[in-house]
Structures are given as C-alpha cells and as structure tokens.
C-alpha cells in the first residue's frame, strides 16, 4: 500500500492555501461546483450523440421530404409529402412493410418459445456449478461473426445440403425463402432472448417457487402466477433486440431469403441501384416509427432497465 501519497494535512488547510498546487485548487473548485462537473462529464458524449447521431437522424427525416428529379437524378431540396404518399398508396410498400413486421414478430415469438425453457433450465434446474458453463455456452456464439452464422445456414439449407440430406434428399428441406429467413434470424438473435430471461429468473428467489408449491400450486400454475409476471420485463427486453434486429435486417434476407424482400432491402436498393436517397430515407422512417412506438409502449414495464 505504498502508492497513494495523500496530503495528510489537507483536512485542516483552507482551500485557498497556495502551497497546495493548481491540481488541488482545481479539484476543490470543482467539488464546490457540481454543475460544472456535470457539464464537463456530459459535454463530449452529448455533443457526439446529439450532433453525430440525433443530428444524423434529423437530417434523415428532413431528407425524407425531399425528392429526386427523375431526369437529372439530382436531389430537389423542397419539402413535399410525395415519398410518404407513394409509400402509403402503393400496394408493394404496404405488403413489404407488413411482411417485415410479421417476420420480426415471428422471430420474436419463436425466440421467446425456445429461450424460456432453456433459460429456466439454466437458472433453476441445472446445478449451480454448471450454470456458469451454460451461460458461457450461450454467450460464445455471440462472438462468432453474424455473417459466419448466416453463411452457415446458407450452407445448411443449400439444395442437397445437410438439411436436405437429413430430411431425405435434395429439395425436401425448406430451401431459401421467407421460412428460412425467419429461422435464421431466430437463430441469430436467440442468445439476446435467453440472456435477459436468464438474468430475470436468477433474481427470482427459489423460496417464492417453494412457497407457491407449499400453498398447493402445481408446476404449471406456479409458472403462470409466479414465474411469468416476474420475467415479463426480461422477455420484453429480449424482444427489443430480436424485434429491432430483425426489422432492420437485409443481409440475412439476401443470404438465405431467395427473392424475399423486406424493408431493409428496399431501403438498400433505393440508396444503391435507384440512387434515390430521399425515398430510402422515407422508407427507413417506417422501422424507426415502429421501434420508437414499441420502446415508448414498453417503457412502463421496466424493460429498459433490463437491457
């Protein structure tokens, strides 16, 4: 314990003592001015998040109101609602938006169904010394690259690949398409659902479950009346990840989705091939509105604290 060389006389000396050096004086001055300290802490992060991020989002929303001149390809910086009118009236965009939301919802439900028994086993059934290893087993694939996992499924689902082979010959598996997309997205985001539920269950004392059993409830009733209410915020926290990550995805769809199109693909196509950034921006506001609505709706459940 030789390292800290603290000034033992500091308690008695007044703050203005010139012998204490500029660092001390600055530190004492800061101590008296909490507002300055707070401003110093928040200045850089808020500058970054507000200017770089919220600013970028603002530019995005503003540019959604612009249009592209059909002949010159130049952006016309005049606010109109043309883009949104096209999205609202054109059948294609409504279908794709609904398909994207449906996909995200299906992925979330699938993940919750698979994650619940696994998390429950990890937190309440497995012996404590195995728990740590089970958590590691769930965490490890998160570090394996997203692309690698999507690629693994591309190989698995290929015509004549392992899944076909397992189900009895080429063409007998689901192949590439919407089903494959939902399956692979559910695979990719499964740990994001398991981990918050596991954390929620770990905080649930075993004595509550025993009390429920002592009062005559069977396993099913205990689950519905004791376990479920406790882990709802955890499930919602997990669903924020699974839903949001699925909603914006356009890479997995390209890898295993065949010709399936989601919002992300349309946004990407409008930026790249069509070179219509304003329209892409207008399309991108759809997932933002859905996610912001979702976040605001679940804020009261306490799910955001679980993230």
């Amino acid at each position: 314990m030789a390292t800290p060389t603290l000034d033992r006389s500091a308690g008695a000396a007044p703050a203005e003592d010139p012998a204490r050096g500029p660092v001390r004086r600055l530190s004492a001055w800061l101590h008296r001015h909490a507002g300055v300290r707070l401003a110093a802490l928040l200045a850089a992060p808020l500058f970054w998040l507000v200017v770089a991020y919220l600013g970028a989002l603002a530019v995005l929303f503003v540019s959604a109101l612009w249009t592209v001149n059909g002949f010159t390809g130049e952006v016309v910086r005049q606010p109109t609602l043309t883009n949104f009118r096209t999205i609202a009236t054109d059948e294609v965009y409504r279908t794709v938006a609904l398909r994207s939301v449906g996909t995200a919802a299906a992925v979330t439900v699938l993940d919750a169904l698979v994650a619940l028994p696994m998390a429950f086993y990890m937190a309440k059934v497995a012996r404590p010394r195995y728990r740590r290893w089970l958590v590691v087993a769930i965490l490890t694939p998160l570090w394996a690259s997203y692309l690698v996992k999507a690629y693994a499924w591309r190989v698995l689902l290929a015509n004549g690949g392992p899944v076909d082979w397992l189900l009895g010959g080429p063409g007998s598996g689901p192949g590439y398409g919407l089903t494959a997309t939902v399956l692979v997205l559910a695979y990719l985001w499964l740990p994001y659902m398991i981990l918050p539920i596991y954390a929620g269950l770990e905080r649930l004392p075993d004595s509550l479950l025993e009390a429920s059993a002592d009062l005559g409830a069977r396993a099913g009733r205990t689950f519905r009346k004791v376990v479920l209410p406790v882990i709802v915020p955890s499930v919602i926290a997990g669903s924020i990840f699974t839903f949001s990550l699925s909603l914006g995805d356009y890479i997995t769809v390209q890898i295993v989705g065949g010709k399936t199109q989601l919002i992300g693909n349309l946004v990407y196509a409008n930026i790249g091939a069509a070179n219509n950034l304003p329209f892409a921006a207008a399309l991108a506001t759809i997932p933002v509105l859905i996610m912001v609505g979702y976040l605001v709706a679940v804020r009261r459940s306490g799910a955001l604290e679980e993230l």
Partner: protein
Amino acid sequence: MTLSRSARWLLRGAMALGLAFIYLPLAVVLINSFNADRTFAWPPAHWTMQWWARAGDNAGAREALWMSVKAGLGATAIALLLGSLVAFAVQRYRFFGRGAVSLLVVLPIALPGIVTGIALDTAFRSVLAPLGIGKGLFSVIVGHATFCVVVVYNNVLARLRRSGGNLQEASADLGADGWQTFRYVTFPVLRSALLAGALLAFGLSFDEIIVTTFTAGPGVQTLPIWIFSNLFRPNQAPVINVVAAVLIVASVVPIYLAQRISDTATGGRL
C-alpha cells in the same frame, strides 16, 4: 424447485436441443472447411487441407482483417471515453433530462442498424461532403463508436451502482483531491468493468456489417464486408468457408478473456 421428474427431463431435453440448434450449424462450417468437394456436397466424401492453405495466402482477407482491427480499436477507444463519461453523469448526478440521456445512449442499438447506417450516410453526404470531408475509415469509426457507447455505459453504470459512493467519500475525507481519488480509488474499482465493456465494444465493431456498408469510404473493406462481397462467388466459397471456420474458432478467445477479467463481467450485460 419442485418439479416432477418428467418436467425436469423435458427441460433438460429442451436445453440439449437448444444447444444442438446453436452449435450444429457452426460445426458444419468447421467440417466443410475440410470437405474436398467445391460445392460442399453433403455428407463429405473426400477430405482436404488445400482450402486452408489457399485461405492463408489470400491477401484480401488479411488486409480486411487489419482494417477491421483498426476500426475496432478506434471505435472502442471513443466508446470507452464517452460511455464512461455518461455513466458517471447518470449515476452521480440528478439532473433534468437524465432519463432522456440514458434513452439516447440506448437508441443507436435499439433502432435497426440500417437506420443508423442510412442516417449517418445522409449526414455525411449532406453535411460533411460539402465541407470536403469524404467517407473513409474515419466515418466507419464514427458509426461504430455511436452504437458501441452503450455497452461501455452499461458495464460502467452497473459497476458504479454496485460500488456506491462510500469509497470516494472516504478517499476525500482522507484528504485526496479529485484526481487522486479517481486514480487510486475509482479507476481500480472500474477497471474490470472497463475491460469487459471494451471487449464487448470491440466485438460489436468487429462483427458489424450494416452500418459499415453505409459509412465505409471507397477502398475501406472490413472483414465482414470482404466476406459478404465474396459470399456469392462460387469459386471463392471454400476460402470463405475457411475464414468462417477461423472466426468460429477465434470466438473462444474473447469468451476466455471475459472469464478471466471477472466472473460477473459476462453475466449477460450487453
């Protein structure tokens, strides 16, 4: 817990099936990296090491790997600084808009990646391009740092909450100034949380493709971008498969490090 025998077995079975679902696809990639057939006919009939040799010679993959490391280190450094600052502010002070600040930190990861990507892209095009600043590695780092802040923030905030303010007050009572308290008390308490946050931030950045697609300048190719651009070329498939196998095996390293850092660092905080 009072579960019947059969319920226990059901749960055990669900766990085993779940783990099989998680690991079998990865195992297939590993096996296929030795599959002599170019199109990965299954089950493999012949085995070879030549894909590994060819992947080792691939300059594109090596350059992309180095680019990913640079982007990851830059984003992690910025995220460590900004994330810790916000965590201190939110934990130590009560101020107007505190809830909004913590929501703002979570927002870049809660919103779909394509939104963050297109927003930054639009901003770069409309604001920075007229100033003569083009997209490049710098813009990738900016994009990655924006969504990496939250993982550092979460880890530091959790540690600050658990450790409370008593140690800092004791240090001040013993006559330490603000810097000494930070250097000898606060920082040692935070060190493992910072390491865990840095590890997660680097991992997030290293794996990111969507935001990268939108923010990367010409010639800036991170490893995921390189993999994706080669994914649909049939004659590159075996090399891609080896790179994928390497990344799967390498994912053990951060897990090992995280376990070494602390037993709580990996407790599901993302």
